[in-house]
């Protein structure tokens, strides 16, 4: 019979999760823990059918993370779309992502906004809050503090529009939670580099 595999203690090799019954054939999956960082990429692509599927398929097929993704045609005459992707990975994986995107046929440019400086990143959220009495007043007061705009209301609810960095949106949603938060819709991050230059 095959013996169960024991990891050496303190050897730096991460101990595999031991199954209750050792398998007859001894394989284990090593977990790798390198430091990861979050980067925002701007990808200019031909706005042709399937282009978004190509980009998303690359990420899912190769096991990369997508934390946020937004896409829209930005130059109508040239049929160019701009995809903004926030992704997390090790330095090596981030370099891979950029190279893998770069070699796709409909991709014009790939720019790592995070590597080039601190990009301006904004997100828009629509937040629906329903309630009565004091919590309703409080929601309105807080919305004012967050510079959220009321874009729809009845005596029972508000829909707020709020723009800002992801952390601000997170915070706004969190404070609304006890005040009758019904639902949230977020656009994902739009990002642009500081200064005079285009990507």
């Amino acid at each position, binding site marked *: *019979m*095959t013996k169960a*595999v*024991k*990891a*050496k203690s303190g050897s730096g*090799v991460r101990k595999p999760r031991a199954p209750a019954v050792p398998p*007859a*054939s*001894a*394989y*284990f*999956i*090593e977990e790798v823990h390198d430091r990861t960082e979050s980067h925002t990429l701007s990808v200019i692509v*031909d706005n042709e*059918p*399937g282009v978004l*599927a*190509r980009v998303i*398929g690359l990420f899912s*097929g190769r096991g990369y993370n997508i934390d946020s993704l937004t896409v829209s045609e930005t130059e109508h005459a040239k049929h160019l779309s701009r995809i903004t992707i926030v992704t997390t990975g090790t330095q*090596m994986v981030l*370099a*891979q992502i950029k*190279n*893998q995107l*770069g*070699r*796709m*046929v*409909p*991709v*014009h440019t790939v720019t790592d906004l995070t590597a080039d400086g601190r990009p301006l990143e904004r997100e828009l959220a629509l937040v629906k809050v329903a309630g009565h009495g004091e919590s309703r007043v409080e929601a309105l007061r807080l919305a004012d503090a967050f510079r959220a705009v009321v874009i729809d209301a009845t005596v029972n609810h508000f829909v707020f529009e709020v723009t800002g960095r992801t952390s601000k949106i997170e915070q706004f949603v969190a404070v609304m939670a006890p005040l009758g938060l019904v639902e949230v819709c977020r656009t994902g991050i739009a990002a642009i580099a500081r200064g005079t230059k285009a990507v």
Partner: protein
Amino acid sequence: MKRQMTGAQMVVQALIDQGVKNIFGYPGGAVLPIYDEIIQQEKVRHVLVRHEQGAGHAAEGYARSTGKVGVALVTSGPGATNLVTALTDALMDSIPIVGITGQVPTHLIGNDAFQECDTVGITRPCTKHNWLVKDVDDLARVLHEAFYVASHGRPGPVVVDIPKDVQFATGTYVPPGHIEHPTYHPRVDGDPRAIAAAVELIASAKRPVFYTGGGVVNSGRRASALLREFVRMTGYPITSTLMGLGAYPASDPQWLGMLGMHGTFEANNVMHDCDVMVTIGARFDDRITGRVNAFSPGSRKIHIDIDPSSINKNIHVDIPIIGDVTHVLQAMIAAWKVRKPRVDKRALKAWWDEIDRWRRRDCLAYKPNADVIMPQYAIERLYAATRDKDVYITTEVGQHQMWAAQFFKFEEPNRWMTSGGLGTMGYGLPASIGVQVAHPKSLVIDIAGDASVLMTMQEMSTAVQHDLPIKIFILNNQYMGMVRQWQELLHGNRLSHSYMESLPDFVKLADAYGCVGIRATKPGELDDAIAEMIRVKRPVIFDCRVAALANCFPMIPSGKAHNEMLLGDAVKPETLGKAIGKEGKVLV
């Protein structure tokens, strides 16, 4: 010259204008208009296969042996899905093929029509690029673009999906002309500063090695010539991946044999102990590196590759050079000649002495047997009988493939067609058909295994129909040999479903297909039987009965480093079960 014609006519015209002489395909409802044009002309020859996967592999064999783009033409739905394995195979091994698929008429797309599938969706991850052409006026441009994308940069497969109504519609045909692609411009010239730094590093090496791969073959014949020139200028040792065999002649004294999991003792030890590694058109695949954190720990690495995403993917390199191998080698040789570096002769002598010690280990030795044909012996005799001939070799996947790589010596590029990346059993037989179509007068042999060859055996019928005298040389051990070997090493010799129960009688099968069957069961009859196989000018199935339980060595077990190889004559039954270390069983 712009002309009005139907979409179906455009397909044939584009093939002619792209210089395509042969295509491989299988008709069906959604490509009937194209087939109706094919039969009315003689410039493009169509080879009818028996399964669309066969068309894809034949196109690969054609492409790999000629350096041209291979073409497969199949129908919608199952025709397209059957092509997927070959497309994936071509993507992994960087083989330029254009797949033309029929599609249901545009108004039926998305309707779950008969023989409809989302071809561009299914083939998106297994092609370099693909197109669904909905307007006949785009068709000619897209077809020319498809050839451009398939063959430029790192080569690979592309698919053009053409709905049936677009094939019938009339539009304007544009000839190929000079393509200025809006976005796809792969870099071919290496960065001069990186090249200068690389030459400097190569010149200063004390224990150097050239590690080359399929990229050299893909770059064209000139790349192989330049590689030979540069390697001989330096006097350094050279090894190659499975895909790169033939780019450097195996008879040359600087040649170390193949490296990697079943590479030679000398090649793998050189990789482990070197101080400068010159990687050319290879991609540090897991079959090459073994355990990544123990891979060549003391070396500085140069990596020449046309694909930026190959750089630093698995192994961190010190000097990356992005460019086409031919261009970069040309620049390197020029820089070397200008600089006239003096290599450290004493260090190099010591390095070669060390290499000779490893060579004397004679790692490919096996125990000869007077009663049973050893598989290694079979390849050796096949090589001896064909070495002076104009021969092309394809293989299936498994033990026979590794033995072929170890024991068949290649002197020229484009002579060796094998499924390296995807490891597609069933590749070799249809690939040999593609090779034979491209080289009708040459000797084309598929070194096969009994399990693999049955996956695409129906293509014998193709060979018979088109008078393609391919030789299917089956090392028949009545096992899936490599699966059995792994089960022996890793799974306590529990041979779960790796025994091919009730194999057909291959000689009778040959007879049934209308080709020639030959069998050899004893070492003494092997040479005559091989001579007979070569003499026969018809397709042959050669049933070579070999030792059933032979294992393929040397072998770097999963998770081991290059200097921890298992050598065949040193392996005792009791060490086999312990071959894989505690850290190692993660790799498959």
